[in-house]
C-alpha cells in the first residue's frame, strides 16, 4: 500500500494548515473545550438544581393541569410554549413559555423555576461564542468549515500518514513529542472530527443555503421549503374548549407504540386554533424526534415524517444527536467527551508547535498561555462569583480572562504563568465542586449532581498531576 504526496504539495498544504489554524485557533479552542462540556449539558442542568428529585413516570392529566395553570397566569405568549417530558436522560418534566421555565410538580402545578446559568454559559460559548445569536451561530458554523479545511490540509501535509500510524514519542524532544501527539490524535480521530465539523457547520449555514435552494427549487417561496423539510401547518379542527392531553398520549401510543414521547409543543397556545405537536424518539434512528400532530382535543392529525419519510429529512434531523453524542448512553457520552477533549488538545498542540518553531518568545506566547490555561480558571472563578449572587457568569468569565491575559503579558514568563494557571485551574475547580456541595447542605436529591461533582474533582486531580509533572520538564521546554 503506497500513499504519497509530493514534497512541494505537502509544503504548500502545511502553509495552508498553519494559516488556517492560526486564524481560528483561539475561537476553535473555546468552541472545542466548551463543546466537550456541552455534551453533558442535560446532566449539568441537573447538577445546577440538585434539589429537584428526578423521576421518569408521569400522568398526562397532571401535565395538562400544569399547562392550564400556565394559561390562567399568562395573557399572551411570545414564542413557543413547550413541555419537556421526563425521560431517562432528562428525568424532570418542565414547561417553558415567554423565556422562562418551571418544573412541573407531582400535583400538576408549576414549581421551582428552571435556572442553570453555568450550563447556559457553556452552551452559549459553544454555540455562539457569547456573540449576538445570529452572528455567533454563523461564526461558529464557519469554524466548522475551517475545521474541515484544516482536516483536508492536514492530510495532504502529512506525507508519512501511514508510516507513522502508531508512532508516539513522549518526552524527549518536545517538538517531536508535540508533533506526534498532534498527528496521532488527528489522524485516528479524523472521521469523528469531520462529522463534528460538518454537523457543527449545519446550525448556522443551513439558513443561507436554504435561501438559495428556495430560490431555485421552490421559486423563492421559503415557506414551501420549510413545509417540505420541517413540516407545514396542519389543518386542525377548531378548538372546542376541551383540551385533552391524555387522549393525545393514548393516540400516540396507538400510532407509534415503541416511540418515546419527549416533548409537547403547544402551537398557538390558548388560541381558538391551537394544536399540539408531540415529539417522540424512535430508538432505531438518529433523528431527535418524529413530530406527531394532534388537535387540541387530542385527536391525531398527522406526522411530519422525519422517521419514515425522505432520507434527506432524516439526515437533517440527525444532526443534533450525532453532534452531541446523545445516543447509546453513558459510554458514548464518555467517548464523545474524550474525543472532544482530544480535539481541544489538537488545537493547543498545533499552536504550541508553531510557537516552538519560531525560536523566540514574545507576547504571543504570553497571550496563548493565558487563553489556554486562563479559560478553566476564569470559568471556575466565574461560577464561584456568580454563586455570590452579584455577577453574571458570562461577564465574570470574560473580565477574569482579560485580567489573566494582562497578568501574563506583564509577567513575560509563559512557562511560569502556565504552571501557575494549571495550579489555579486545579484549585478553583476543586473549590467550585466543594462550594457547590456546601451550597446544597452536603446532600443532593438528584444523584447526577454527585456524579458531576466527582467528575470535577477528578478533573482537578488530573490537573494537579499535570502541574506536578510540569516541574520535571526542563525550563526551556515548557513554553
Amino acid at each position, binding site marked *: 500500500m503506497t500513499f504519497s504526496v509530493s514534497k512541494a504539495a505537502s509544503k*504548500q498544504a502545511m502553509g495552508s494548515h498553519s494559516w*488556517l489554524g492560526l486564524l481560528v485557533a483561539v475561537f476553535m479552542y473555546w468552541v472545542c473545550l466548551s463543546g466537550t462540556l456541552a455534551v453533558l449539558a442535560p446532566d449539568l442542568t441537573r447538577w445546577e438544581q440538585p434539589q429537584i428529585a428526578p423521576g421518569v413516570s408521569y400522568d398526562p392529566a397532571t401535565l395538562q393541569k400544569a399547562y392550564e395553570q400556565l394559561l390562567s397566569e399568562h395573557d399572551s405568549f411570545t414564542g413557543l410554549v413547550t413541555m419537556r417530558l421526563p425521560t431517562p436522560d432528562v428525568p424532570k418534566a418542565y414547561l417553558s413559555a415567554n423565556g422562562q421555565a418551571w418544573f412541573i410538580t407531582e400535583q400538576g402545578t408549576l414549581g421551582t423555576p428552571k435556572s442553570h446559568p453555568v450550563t447556559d454559559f457553556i452552551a452559549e460559548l459553544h454555540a455562539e461564542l457569547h456573540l449576538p445569536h445570529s452572528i455567533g451561530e454563523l461564526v461558529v458554523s464557519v469554524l466548522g468549515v475551517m475545521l474541515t479545511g484544516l482536516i483536508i490540509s492536514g492530510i495532504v501535509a502529512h506525507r508519512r500518514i501511514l508510516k507513522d500510524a502508531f508512532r*508516539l514519542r513522549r518526552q*524527549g524532544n518536545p517538538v517531536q513529542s508535540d508533533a506526534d501527539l498532534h498527528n*496521532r490524535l488527528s489522524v485516528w480521530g479524523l472521521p469523528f472530527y469531520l462529522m463534528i465539523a460538518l454537523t457543527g457547520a449545519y446550525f448556522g449555514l443551513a439558513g443561507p443555503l436554504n435561501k438559495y435552494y428556495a430560490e431555485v427549487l421552490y421559486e423563492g417561496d421559503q415557506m414551501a421549503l420549510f413545509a417540505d423539510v420541517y413540516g407545514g401547518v396542519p389543518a386542525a379542527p377548531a378548538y372546542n374548549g376541551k383540551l385533552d392531553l391524555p387522549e393525545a398520549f393514548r393516540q400516540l401510543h396507538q400510532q407509534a407504540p415503541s416511540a418515546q414521547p419527549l416533548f409537547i409543543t403547544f402551537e398557538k397556545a390558548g388560541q381558538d386554533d391551537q394544536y399540539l405537536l408531540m415529539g417522540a424518539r424512535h430508538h432505531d434512528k*438518529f433523528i431527535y424526534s418524529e413530530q406527531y400532530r394532534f388537535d387540541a382535543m387530542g385527536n391525531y392529525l398527522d406526522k411530519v415524517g422525519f422517521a419514515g419519510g425522505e*432520507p434527506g*429529512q432524516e439526515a437533517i434531523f440527525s444532526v443534533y444527536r450525532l453532534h452531541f453524542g446523545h445516543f447509546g448512553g453513558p459510554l458514548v457520552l464518555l467517548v464523545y467527551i*474524550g474525543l472532544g477533549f482530544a480535539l481541544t488538545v489538537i488545537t493547543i498542540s498545533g499552536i504550541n508547535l508553531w510557537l516552538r518553531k*519560531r525560536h523566540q518568545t514574545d507576547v504571543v506566547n504570553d497571550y496563548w498561555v493565558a487563553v489556554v490555561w486562563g479559560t478553566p480558571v476564569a470559568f471556575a472563578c466565574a461560577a464561584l462569583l456568580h454563586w455570590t449572587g452579584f455577577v453574571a457568569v458570562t461577564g465574570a468569565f470574560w473580565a477574569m480572562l482579560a485580567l489573566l491575559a494582562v497578568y501574563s503579558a506583564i509577567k513575560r514568563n509563559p512557562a511560569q504563568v502556565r504552571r501557575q494557571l494549571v495550579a489555579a485551574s486545579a484549585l478553583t475547580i476543586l473549590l467550585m465542586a466543594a462550594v457547590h456541595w456546601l451550597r446544597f447542605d452536603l446532600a443532593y436529591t438528584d444523584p447526577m449532581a454527585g456524579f458531576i461533582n466527582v467528575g470535577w474533582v477528578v478533573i482537578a486531580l488530573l490537573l494537579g498531576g499535570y502541574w506536578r509533572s510540569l516541574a520535571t520538564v526542563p525550563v526551556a521546554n515548557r513554553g
Partner: protein
Amino acid sequence: MVGILAALLLTSVGLGILLAGWRGQLRRVQQWYKPVGWACIALSPWLWHTAYGWRFALAYWVLTVICCALLMTYLQRDIRPAISLKPRPRVAVPAAPIVRATGKHLLSAIVVLPLAGMVSMLSTVAVTRHLPWASVNIIALGVYLMPLWWGALAYWAMADTKRWRPPACLAMLGAVCYSLLYL
C-alpha cells in the same frame, strides 16, 4: 451481546495485526498483514449491525476503531529521556515585520475565505439541483456537502503560492455558478 463482543474483538484483532506489522513483527507475512488487518476492521460493522441496525452500527464502528487505535498507540508509546532545548530569547514584538509577514496572508484570508464560502454555496446549489431526487434530499445533500467543499476551497486558496490566483478563480467560478442559477 455476542455480536457486540465479536465486533469489538474483530476491530481489536484488525488493529492489532496492523500494529504488529507496523512494528516489524510480521515480516514473514509482509504482503498480507495490511489487507487482512483492514479487512477485519472493515467487516466489524456487519457484526455491529446484527445488534443495532446499520445506522448505529456505523457510528459504533467508527467510535470503537478510533478508541482502540488511540489506546494501542498510547500503550506502545516510546518514552524517551527528556532533552533540554536551547532557551529561546525573549524579544519585544516588532510591529513592522509582523505586519509585513502576516498582513498579506490576513488580507488574503479576509478576501478569499468569504469568497470561497459564497462560491461553495452557489456551486453546491447549481450542481445538486440537477439531481433526479426529491427536493428535501437535494437540500440534505447540500447541507452536508457545502461545508466540505468550502473547506476544500479554503485549503486550496490558502495553499496557493500565487496570491492572485485563488480570488480570480473563485470569482470566475462564482460568476459561472451565478449565471447557471439566475440567468
